């Protein structure tokens, strides 16, 4: 029979990693397929048994259990079960049970193993350890050029609307029109609106004025005939290369035969990651809060540009943070202009993602002031109160809203002399109660943004010595860090958790479930090792260098997991911004490809494993 004409074959062709197979081999797989029906509640595989088939779920769902009886995962349409045992001579180590009436496509062990041997990408799909799979996924997303998950920047995203003029219009008429709208180029068209040439500012200088040409001559006399064009679907990076090679600065953009835009080399250059640099320059030149608020509105667009340029999540965090911190610094400079120079030295410190240089968007403001010990309330109190109020209101106007937990310099508690801060930290470290731990997780990530930095650095050095020495404090921090656990993955449209059966959480909070657990892990290990970095990536590097807390391999895996989860989150937010929505952390499962969901499961497993390492190191569960 013509297996290739059957729907069954079409279904196989859509399921990773069979998508990698050439058509004739896919036919062979379809030809050799066996179909099995399993009623809900039936065990398909039992640990200790023997299995010689890999199963692709066609409809229904299965649960897989770890040898200790814990749920490993729940799988549905398009996902594979049973292949691990096939690769281990048929020895089954995990129970597999149907939780719905299920139709399975069974691939014989022999065919499955042959497929692995012949096709490297299929082999990698099934055999790579989670870390390798994640690493490859990250590379693929970075290097993707066909829209695999990543939204690549295209010419149409950057082009400007073209100015169209007829070929018989006079040079002067065209020059006037260009001046009116401040256009640098005009597209010259035939009567049927097809493109025949382009004129730029330079042509008027070089071909008209310098040559003494009459301004009433038709524009066609000075245009560049049959110019090079780009398609609106071309990639921005390729367009830039082409223009550099041909040494041209303006190119008409075509959609088939129609001129739909014009793009300049500077449009393309500005789209590169330096966008943030321009914005920071403007921020430092801003004369008042209103201007800062206006500039701050550009931030989401900058973020989208960075994501589209496929930059690593850590770089995007740095770039977005550079904008956030520029706004704070400019705000403080404006405040000092208004209220005068500070009467005693102080350090304006940021906490949270701004301190860690991991912002992705406007965040809540978390900040405080460390004042010199020369401070005295009666004399200087009003100055710093005013300063804090001015900055906090200004930041709020810029989209960095007031902290709901009131962790801000406007709160008297967090605007104190160094000696008081020192006392705070001592209490938190020596008496790690619930509230203390909450503050600790905020205030152990501090960075000085303005003022006398030494006020903070001295304090931090003392703190790290204490945290490194206090295993009790570390254990409490570790146990606190376990309050955010990653999920097992997705099941259909829902988040799947180990403890909670049938979660109704639609969409996954990438921040709470993925990003925060890694930040917490890095913080605990950094404090335990007395390591000074605040940025999570740098903390992970330092942890690896220190060499005792976590193995180099574990750190590498954690980095990859963090990168992948951060990237999924950033892309989700970039898509929302592009659609005109305000970005959030909830990634709906339908936004992810089957492959991305699998990689996310891998990433969550890496985090869960590292949490287990931390938990056993501190026997942290004792404190829960």
């Amino acid at each position, binding site marked *: 029979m013509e*297996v290739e004409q059957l*729907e069954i074959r079409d279904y196989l062709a859509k399921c990773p990693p069979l998508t990698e197979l050439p058509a004739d081999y896919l036919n062979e797989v379809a030809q050799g397929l*066996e179909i099995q*029906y399993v*009623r809900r509640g039936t065990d398909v595989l039992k640990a200790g048994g023997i299995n010689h088939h890999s199963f692709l779920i066609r409809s229904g769902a299965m649960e897989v259990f770890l040898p200790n009886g814990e749920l490993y995962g729940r799988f549905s349409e398009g996902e594979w079960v049973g292949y691990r045992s096939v690769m281990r001579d048929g020895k089954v180590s995990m129970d597999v049970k149907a939780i719905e*009436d299920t139709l399975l496509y069974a691939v014989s062990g022999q065919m499955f193993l042959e497929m692995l041997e012949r096709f490297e990408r299929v082999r990698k799909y099934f055999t790579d350890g989670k870390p390798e799979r994640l690493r490859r996924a990250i590379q693929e997303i970075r290097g993707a050029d066909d829209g695999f998950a990543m939204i690549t920047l295209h010419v149409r995203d950057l082009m400007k609307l073209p100015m169209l003029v007829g070929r018989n219009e006079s040079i002067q008429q065209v020059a006037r029109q260009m001046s009116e709208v401040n256009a640098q180029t005009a597209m010259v068209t035939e009567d049927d609106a097809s493109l025949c040439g382009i004129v730029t500012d330079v042509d008027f200088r070089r071909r008209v004025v310098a040559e003494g040409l009459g301004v009433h001559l038709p524009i066609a006399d000075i245009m560049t005939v049959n110019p090079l064009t780009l398609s609106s679907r071309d990639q921005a990076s390729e367009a830039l290369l082409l223009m550099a090679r041909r040494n041209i600065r303006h190119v008409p953009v075509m959609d088939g035969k129609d001129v739909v835009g014009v793009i300049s080399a500077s449009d393309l250059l500005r789209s590169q990651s330096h966008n943030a640099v321009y914005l920071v320059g403007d921020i430092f030149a801003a004369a008042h809060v209103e201007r800062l608020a206006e500039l701050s509105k550009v931030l989401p667009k900058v973020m989208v540009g960075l994501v589209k340029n496929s930059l690593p999540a850590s770089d995007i965090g740095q770039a977005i943070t550079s904008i956030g911190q520029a706004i704070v610094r400019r705000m403080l400079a404006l405040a000092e202009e208004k209220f005068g120079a500070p009467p005693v030295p102080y350090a304006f410190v940021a906490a949270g993602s701004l301190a860690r240089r991991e912002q992705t968007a406007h965040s809540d403001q978390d900040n405080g002031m460390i004042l010199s010990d020369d401070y005295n309330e009666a004399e200087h109190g009003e100055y710093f109160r005013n300063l804090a109020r001015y900055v906090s209101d200004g930041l709020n106007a810029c989209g960095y809203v007031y902290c709901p937990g009131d962790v801000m310099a406007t709160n008297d508690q967090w605007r104190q002399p160094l000696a008081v801060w020192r006392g705070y930290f001592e209490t938190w470290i020596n008496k790690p109660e619930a509230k203390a731990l909450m503050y600790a997780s905020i205030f152990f990530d501090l960075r000085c943004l303005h003022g006398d930095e030494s006020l903070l650095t001295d304090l931090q050095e003392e703190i790290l010595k204490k945290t490194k020495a206090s295993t009790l404090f570390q254990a409490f921090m570790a146990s606190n860090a376990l309050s955010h656990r990653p999920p097992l993955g997705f099941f259909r449209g829902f988040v799947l958790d180990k403890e909670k059966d049938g979660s109704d959480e639609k969409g996954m909070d990438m921040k709470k479930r993925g990003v925060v657990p890694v930040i917490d892990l890095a913080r605990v290990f950094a404090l335990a090792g007395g390591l000074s970095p605040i940025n999570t990536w740098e903390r992970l590097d330092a942890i690896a260098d220190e060499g005792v807390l976590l193995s180099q391999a574990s750190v590498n895996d954690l980095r990859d997991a963090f990168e992948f989860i951060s990237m999924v989150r950033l892309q989700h937010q970039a898509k929302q911004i592009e659609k005109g929505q305000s970005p959030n952390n909830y990634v709906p499962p339908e936004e992810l490809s089957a492959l991305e969901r699998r990689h996310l499961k891998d990433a969550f497993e890496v985090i869960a494993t590292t949490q287990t390492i931390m938990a056993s190191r501190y026997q942290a569960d004792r404190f829960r």
Partner: protein
Amino acid sequence: MWWRWFSPEAQKQRLLKKVEHPLARAYLETPFPDKKRNAWELDYLVLDFETTGLDASKDAILSMGYTEIRGGRVQMDGCIHRIIKLNIPLPPETVVIHKITDDRMNAGIHLHDALHELLERMTGKVVVVHFAHIESTFLHAAMERVYGQKLPLLMLDTLAIERRWRERTQQVIIPNQFRLGNLRNAYSLPRYGAHSALMDAIATAELFLAEMSYMQCEKDGIRLGDLLG
């Protein structure tokens, strides 16, 4: 005893005296599987015909599709799909339903070749169909033409299995619920879009496995006789 005269095996013995074609003789000489045997261990040939109408005395088989069940699994390597060459032009209304055009028909094979091939595959197996009336009457008509005799069939009907099951468990019977697609839906089987004799045979095979899986839960082990009703 008198009933032995009507039993399929006795019938087969009598027919052996009349039938000459070696394939038909081999079919008759091979005993049907014992009714006491575990239904999960048997080999099945699941069959579907597309026909020009419902009357086997007037209408013709357009195509045959069949697949095998072995070891409780549908075997894709046992799939066959045959278009039958007709001597008459196709009635237009059947073209619409089956999407078999005159051109494709001409690429088909003759009925007796298709029947030989089918009979060889049926030998020693239990035949499974959905709504046995069509396949059994058309198969008998074809046998009569090709071998001169109607050969006895051991045929299971997924529709009849379902009807008996529902009557026994006193479930309400709703019109249309016994259509292949609706029954599949009731067993959470996926919806298949395109219809061909082979696709319907595979769909029937999956339904048959689902029915057995459900009956399995009520009693331990099913015998072939339980399915015959």
